[in-house]
Structure formats: structure tokens, C-alpha cells
């Protein structure tokens, strides 16, 4: 008769992994736009070059592992990694830096562990940390945002030339410490004075940074709306960061850690909250687990930012918590219907 023999369920929902990834890519647009608006085309070039190299590395790895290349490239996961890394790197990073980053992310952090879904660490963040440790100079050189200086931003051509290094010295790019750096270095000025003194501060945090963060927040809200992930991890991360910064704000003395709003809209906060912490592969799996996971990341971000050695801390915090995710999972198994939580965990696990 020739009827299919398949087991239930026969119906399937509309969601597919490729669609999830496409939505994530789509959601980066507002943030990317802000970054480009304020820091020039450097970030776009980063993202572009990272995408090309990431796809190439992915294809290479799949070929070496004898997997169907087209099938796996179609899940868009390499592109997501490339986008996140490209956004996280300083605009106009040199091409080799980006390439080392994507190579490390795709080959070592992802494919070596068995490909998508098997990686214990977020590839983009692992690569970011590796680059930060290996090339601290390149990794902390940021362009000055528009409005903080008198000159022009990098145009697309200049950005390309800057990235690939030909005629780099002819491009007149102005760099500046990021607001988080400034805050870190500050030990004599009141927060308010610091705001006055430094050109890179804007309304709430740094010029450009606040908008980039708002952009990523918008993207995150969109993803929440599309039910790509649940609110638990991002919200608890933002909440714990807010709580800690409010606790240690002390009204803005020279020893202050900065206001909650400053922290929420600085550095990689929103990118981290909605695009990194929500990375399903490397986070805790249950909702309760995700609450804990997100909250601890928020705490770590604040600690490292204010008392640690690195100005921004999203990548470090996420990596640290990637380690902890399996433990969190172990202790946050949800209560199954008809079971008592005690019985479920006691003795059995």
C-alpha cells in the first residue's frame, strides 16, 4: 500500500532551528545600526569579515568531519557566532584578529566538541576572551563615538582599508577610552565631575554605548515576543546587575561603581543579556535554572567591572557560568507531575 510508517506526533510546530537563528540575526539589526551610527562602519566590516571566515571554517570543519556541509550550514548557527563576535570586537579590528577569533570559535570551541549543541562554552565569548588575553592592545582600542570629537567617522571604504591594513596609517581614526575604562581609572573625581570632564559620556552612559544597548534591548524584546527564548535568564541578569549597582552606587562618590542605569546601558550589558546569556546551548536548561544562571552572571559582571582587572566583563562572566550550568541543572530539575520535589532529588540524583 505504501503508507509511511512513522511514530507520533505527526504534526509539527512552525518553529525550526534555522528560523530561530534567523530571528536572532534579524534582532541584532537595531544594535548594529546604533553601533554603526555612532562608531562608523568598523563594526559592519567586522561582522561581514567574521561571517565569511566563520562560514569558511565551518565548511572546512564539516568537510574534515565528513558531515553534509550544506545541511549544517543551513542552521545559521555559524553566522550567529560570527555576528556576535563581530559586534563584540572593537570596530575596525584588523582582519587577522577577526580571523583568529572566528577560527577559534568555530574550530576549537564548537566543532572540536562535536558541533552545534555540544559546545559547553559560548563560542563567540570564548573567542573574545582568548583574543582579549592574547591581544590586549588591539582588543581595547575603540574609536571615539560621533559627537565626542570634531572629526568624521570611518566611512565604509576607510573601514575596509582599516580592517585589512592597507593604507591604515592614511586613515585618520581617533580612538578613545570607553566609558567603562574611564570609570575604572577614575579614583579622584565624583561621578558627576567625571561626566563633565570626559567627552565620551552621554545622557546615561557613554555616547553611542547607550544607544547600542538600547538597540540590543529592542532586539531582545522582539525575540522575547517571538518566543525564541524565555525571559528568565536575561531578566534575572539585568535585575541582579541593577540591584548590585544600586547597592554600591553611593550617590556618585569618586569610589562609586556607577549608577544602575550606567551599568545597564554600558559595554556589552544588553548584548550579553539578550544574545549571549540566552544562548540555549551553554546555559542552564530549566526556567528555575535559568533564573539562577542569569542572576549569577549579573553579579559576576558587576564584580569584574568594578573590582576586577578588566573593564568589561560580560564575556568572562558568561564563560564562568558556562562552567556552572551543569551543576545548576542538576539542582534545579523541575518537579515532575505527581512527584514530590524531595523524593525526586533526594537519593535519586
Amino acid at each position, binding site marked *: 500500500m505504501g503508507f509511511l510508517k*512513522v511514530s*507520533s506526533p*505527526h504534526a509539527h510546530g512552525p518553529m525550526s*532551528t534555522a528560523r530561530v537563528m534567523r530571528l536572532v540575526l534579524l534582532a541584532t539589526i537595531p544594535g548594529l545600526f546604533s553601533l554603526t551610527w555612532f562608531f562608523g562602519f568598523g563594526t559592519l566590516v567586522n561582522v561581514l569579515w567574521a561571517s565569511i571566515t566563520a562560514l569558511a571554517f565551518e565548511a572546512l570543519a564539516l568537510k574534515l568531519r565528513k558531515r553534509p556541509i550544506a545541511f549544517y550550514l543551513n542552521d545559521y548557527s555559524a553566522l550567529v557566532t560570527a555576528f556576535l563576535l563581530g559586534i563584540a570586537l572593537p570596530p575596525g579590528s584588523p582582519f587577522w584578529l577577526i580571523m583568529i577569533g572566528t577560527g577559534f570559535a568555530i574550530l576549537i570551541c564548537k566543532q572540536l566538541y562535536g558541533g552545534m*549543541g555540544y559546545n559547553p562554552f559560548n563560542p563567540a565569548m570564548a573567542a573574545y576572551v582568548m583574543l582579549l588575553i592574547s591581544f590586549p592592545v588591539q582588543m581595547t582600542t575603540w574609536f571615539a563615538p560621533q559627537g565626542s570629537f570634531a572629526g568624521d567617522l570611518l566611512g565604509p571604504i576607510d573601514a575596509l582599508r582599516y580592517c585589512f591594513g592597507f593604507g591604515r596609517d592614511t586613515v585618520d581614526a581617533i580612538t578613545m577610552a570607553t566609558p567603562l575604562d574611564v570609570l575604572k581609572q577614575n579614583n579622584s573625581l565624583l561621578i558627576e565631575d567625571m561626566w563633565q570632564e570626559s567627552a565620551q559620556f552621554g545622557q546615561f552612559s557613554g555616547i553611542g554605548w547607550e544607544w547600542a544597548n538600547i538597540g540590543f534591548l529592542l532586539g531582545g524584546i522582539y525575540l522575547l515576543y517571538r518566543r525564541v527564548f524565555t525571559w528568565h535568564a536575561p531578566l534575572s541578569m539585568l535585575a541582579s546587575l541593577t540591584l548590585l549597582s544600586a547597592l554600591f552606587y553611593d550617590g556618585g562618590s569618586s569610589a562609586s561603581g556607577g549608577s544602575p542605569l550606567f551599568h545597564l546601558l554600558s559595554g556589552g550589558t544588553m548584548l550579553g543579556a539578550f544574545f549571549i546569556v540566552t544562548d540555549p546551548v*551553554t546555559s542552564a536548561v530549566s526556567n528555575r535554572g535559568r533564573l539562577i544562571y542569569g542572576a549569577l552572571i549579573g553579579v559576576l559582571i558587576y564584580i569584574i567591572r568594578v573590582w576586577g582587572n578588566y573593564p568589561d566583563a560580560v564575556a568572562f562572566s558568561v564563560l564562568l557560568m558556562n562552567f556552572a550550568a551543569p551543576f545548576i541543572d542538576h539542582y534545579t530539575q523541575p518537579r515532575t*507531575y505527581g512527584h514530590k520535589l524531595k523524593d525526586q532529588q533526594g537519593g535519586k*540524583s
Partner: protein
Amino acid sequence: MRKIWDIHGGIHPAENKHQSLLNPIENAGIPAQLILPLAQHIGAPASPIVNVGDRVLKGQMIAEAKGFVSAPVHAPTSGTIAAIESRVIPHPSGMTASCIVIDTDGKDEWITHQGVKDYTQLSKLELVDRIRQAGIAGMGGAGFPAAVKLSTRDDKPIETLILNGTECEPYITADDILMRERAAEIIAGAEILRHIIKPNKETLIGVEDNKPEGIAALKKAAEGTGIEIVVFPTKYPSGGEKQLIQILTGKEVPAGGLPSDVGIVCQNIGTATAIYRAIQFGEPLISRITTITGEACERPQNYEVLLGTPVQYLLNKSGFNKENCIRLIMGGPMMGYTLQDTAVPIVKTSNCVLAPTVAELPPPPPAQACIRCGMCAEACPVSLLPQQMYWFARAQEHEKLENHQLFDCIECGACSFVCPSNIPLVQYYRASKAEIRQAQQDKIKSERSKERFEARTARLEQEEAEKEAKRAARMEAAKAKAAAAANAAETSKTDIIQAAIERSKAKQAESADPAQAAIARAQAKRDGGAEEESPQEKTERLQKLLAGAEKRLVAAKEKLALAQEQQSDNADAFATAVSKTEEKLASIKQELAAHEATLAPAKTPAPSTDSTDPAQAAIARALAKRAGAGADESTEDKTTRLQNAIATTEKRLVAAQQKLTLAQEQNDANVGAFATGVEKTQAKLDAAKKELADHQATLGANDTAEQVASDDPVQAAIERAKAAREAQANMSEADKIKQNIESLENRIAKSKEKLEAARAAGDDKADILADSLAKLEEKLAAAQQQLS
């Protein structure tokens, strides 16, 4: 408004219900042939009570329930029995099973049947029995015999009776249309159920809010009855029994428990109407409402279908277009299974046949890697972590799977539905469940074989020891003989006679009295004769049986493994076969062990005494027999043994029942096997109880001396011996000697026979026998001399 609870997770698949609701229920008519599987329910298959060629009438019982968890089958229309044979039945594996095939005659002639005028006058037991006799099994899909669910225990008072009208699966509208058109019957059925169950709080009918017409009709019909129609938001799988209970009452059925544990009984509304018809009109369950739908059908429709109607017949009626259809589903798109053959019949549980087009339900795309997005965990109504279970299933980490409550998974398919990577999660869980069950069975088996090995080793050692003892005894006997010969040479003839008399006297003294000797003789006879051979034969026979069964088990396992490898759905069937074979094997082993146990004590004491003095040996043997064999002699022993057996069987029954309920909750495919297990255990238990009763009856009878003689050979022998003693006391000396001679001659003759037999068999007892024969002859000579 009453409070509605929410269940965790759940999904909202496209409902696709309107297509089949355009027209009222249509009678599907009488197909030329009906195929009625004997197992249309969970539990033991019914057993046919008609023969091929019999004419049957509509409503006539054609197969009777086999055991408690079972349901009879009735003829859905009049006709003749065409065959009782294996046919393809609706089952995920596409397997065949025994069916009764009826060639219909179109007359649709009813058997005389009668309803109950006033059911409130009948006791609960009578009503439940009527429901049982009507063959009603849960019509919502699982097919659990309704009567079983209604046999609630008095120590578990029921608070809430729930009728399930949720019908949360997409496409299916059988319950919806039933509510619209036959609301009064549902309510009438609910009232009967309420009368039977007597819930002390409330009777509820749960319906999802996507059936406004059905709800309106039900509400109208329920006016003034106190039955409450509870409407709640549509969400799959609200219709699962446990989920519905949670939604309506906020209670959770404890894991491994039954709804009655939290004071709830749940029945499907279709079942309620069937119960109504059975009680009110005396009509057994012979038809049901089935939805035929899907875009490959031109006219989706709900039919009133005679059980046994082939699916093809219904598809034809609905304008089925095979071109566009690549899968045919029995049930809904979430939990239904695919059919390979359109000849399969509609059975008591068939609520829907779904014939979708390719575009409607496209073949599943290849699965991608799990991205741990957690959407599956979000969707799971049981709050499991499907993604974790998936990783563990792939890694075959069974322990972790069980710790993650794999066996609480109701296989609703919500997780697979939402999984963006298209991972067939449920398939993994089914496979893992089967593997774990298999592993458990293997473990039990290996433990058994270990026991068996140890028993064997012990037996071999014992045999070795016995041989050793025999050899030593023989040597001693030879020495004694030599000594006797030397003595004989020295003493005079009179001395010899004297000695013989002495010895014979001594022997008599030793054995207390002739009665004892008689016992000994009687026992010796028993030991030496037929009995001696047959235990060995029995052992051999049992061992042979055992070997055969083991071989079969291995073959079955191989088949099972193969099936599992190929992910064949037959795996279930094979698993059942394996477990059955194992059961058989276990019972043979048990028998063997029991047999060996009776054998062993009888053997040990006997040989050591054999050589020294036949009379003593005989006594010893007799005593050993009494002590060891137990069964015949010591009635107390038998009683305790039987009681023990009953106790263990009962324990086993409880365990089996637990397993069964567990399996039922999980809608497990093995439910059938478990049910059979329960049945069998029950049967065994009954048999044991009966034996005990019989035994106790004979025990009572034994108290009267007369009975003893005929009942118990040993007792009889004692009686005879006593009689002999009395007779002997009255005899003269000469008579005594004469009698002695006679009996000696007898014994010699028998001894010779035995000896010959032993020699022929090459038995190492031959020597001993020869020995004792020589002694007997000596005695005879002495006695004869004495006489003369």
C-alpha cells in the same frame, strides 16, 4: 465560577476540527464482513465461545472475558462466523492477532435483550457486572475496561467523578458531535455512573472551550441534575486523564498511583453513553462514533460504525483519495499511529482515522542538533526536561533517564511538536523505555540463572559426597562380611542357628516391634520401587524442558534485538514474547527446584545406613521419607508450604498489578502483557488457594482413623503393621517362624528382582543390593533350620 487550574506547558496545534463537523453523525451501515479482534481493550484478550459456521445474532456474546482485566466481545450484527484467525489489527506495529470474522447477513437481527427498568434498585456489583458483560472498554483511546475502573474499593472513598469530554487532539470530533447530538445520553450515563461510584462531592464533565455547541447542549441536558459542566481553555494535552484531573481539581495523581488514590474516577463521555445503553437497553458495546477526516478525504465525517468495520470501507464512504495520502493515521496527529493496511478494523478505541495529504502533514524533515533551547521543557505537561532525556537516551544512560522520570512521560508529543530541530524526541523515549524494561528483565533473568547455577553446584557436590559415602560403606560391608565368614568357620552349626535367632531377635528388639519393621518394609518398597526411578526421570524431563525453553528465549531475544535495531514497531510484540518465554522458563525452573528439594532429603540419609542393616536402613529411609518428602506424610508441612506459596503469589500479584497500573498510566504498549501477567498470577493464586482448601479438607477427614488407611500409604502401612503385630501375638512360635520365613522369601524374591534391574541399569546400588540379598538368604537359612 469554579476555579480552573492550569497545567504546565502544553501547546496549541492547529485544531482542524471544523472539517468533520459539517454534517451530523451518519450511520456507516453494515459492511459485508466484520473483523473483531479478541483484544480491543487493555488486558487479557477475550476467548471465543463460538465456532466457525455458527450463526450469531446482533448483540450476542462471541468471546468472553478472560479474567478481571478483560472485556467480552459481541457480534455487532447478525451473520455467520466465517473464521477465527489471525488478522492485521490496529496496532502501531501493524501486527496480526486473533480475530473473529463475521460474514454479515444484512438482517441485523437482534438477540433478545433487556434493559434495567430502574437501575437505582440494583446494587453496585450488579451494575458493574452488567457493564462488564456489555464489553465496555474506555472509548477515549486507551481502552481500559470500564468495569475495572468502576470497581472502586470502599476504603478509598471517591470524592469526584469526572467525565472527560476534552478531546484535545486536533482533528478528532467524535466526542464533540456526541455532545451535540446525544447530550441526554451522556448525562443519563453520567447519572448511572454517579449512582455506581457515589462521589461524595461532585460530578463534573470537563470540556475545552472550543466546543461551544457541545457545551450548550450538555448544559441544557444537565439542568437540574447537579452535574456540572466545566469549561476550560483549549490547550493540548488537557485531555490526558492526569492533566484533566489537575485542571479540574488541582490535584495531582501521585506517580505510580491511580486517580482513585486522590478520590477521583475518570471516564470518557463516549464510555458514559455506552454504559447508558448497556444499562437502559441491555445493549452491549457493538458500535462507536469514529471521525474520518483529513484532506485526502473528500467528505470528512463522523460515523456511527459497527465494531469490526474495515477502515477501507469507511474511507470509501468518505471519498478517500489515495493519490495525495502518504500516511494513514489511527487516532489524532499528536498521539495516533500509522496504519499500513486499510483492511484493519475499527475497534472499541478507534476514535479517528486521519488521512492527511502530503501538504497537510508533510514527512518529517531530517533532525538537526539539539540546541538546548528548552522549548520542549516549556511544552511538557508533566514538567520533564525532554532535552536532557534526549541526551541521556542517546548516550544510553538509563539510570539518569529514570532519575529524570522518563517513565512519567505520557508520550503526548508536545515536546517533539515544538522542537525547532525536529528531533523525534518521543521516539527516543519509547525506545529507551523499551530498553530499560528489557534490561530489567535481563537482570532478573541473570539473577535467576545465578541461583540456578548455585543450586546445580550444590547438587553436584552433594552427589559427589553421596558417592563417596557409598564407596566407604561398601568397603565396610565387605569387611564385615569377611569377618562374618571367619566367624562362621569357627563356630558350630548350632551356634550359627543360635546366632541367627539372636540376631533376628536383636533385630526385632532394635526395630522396637514388627510394626516398625512393617513400616520399614513398606517404605523400603516405596523407596526401592517405582518411586526411586521416577524422580530421576522427572528431573531429566524437567531439565530437558528447561533447556528447550532457554533456547527459545535466546532466539526470542535475538529477534527482539534485531527488531529494536531496525526500530521496528514489532519490538513491543517481541518484548512481550520474550517476557512470556521468561515466565515459562521461570515456572519450569521453579518446578525443577521444588522437585529437587523433595529429592535431596530423601536421598541423603538413606545410603549411609543402607549397608549396615537393611531393616534399619528401611526405617531410616521411612523416616527420611516422612521428614523430607513432606507432601505425603506431614500434613502440617504441606499446609505451611501451600500457605507460603499463596503468600508469595499474592505478593507477586500485587507487584504485577502495580506494574500494570503504571503501564496503563503511561499508555504503554506493554499493558497487554502486564495484564496477562496479572491474570496468570491471579490464576495461580486461585489454584494455590484451592489446593490449600482441598488439603485442609482432607486434613479434617484424616482425623477419623478409617479414612487414614485409604488416604495415606504410610498410615496404612502402620495400620497393617499393627494388625500384623496383634495377629502375631496370638500365633504360636512355629507359626511366627513360618511367617517369618514366608516374609523373608518374599523379600528375597523382591530383592532379586531389584538386583537384576539394578544390574541391568548398571547402577552402583547393585553391590549393596547383592549384599542385602545375601544377608536375607542367610536369615532364611537360619529360620528354616530353626523350624526344622
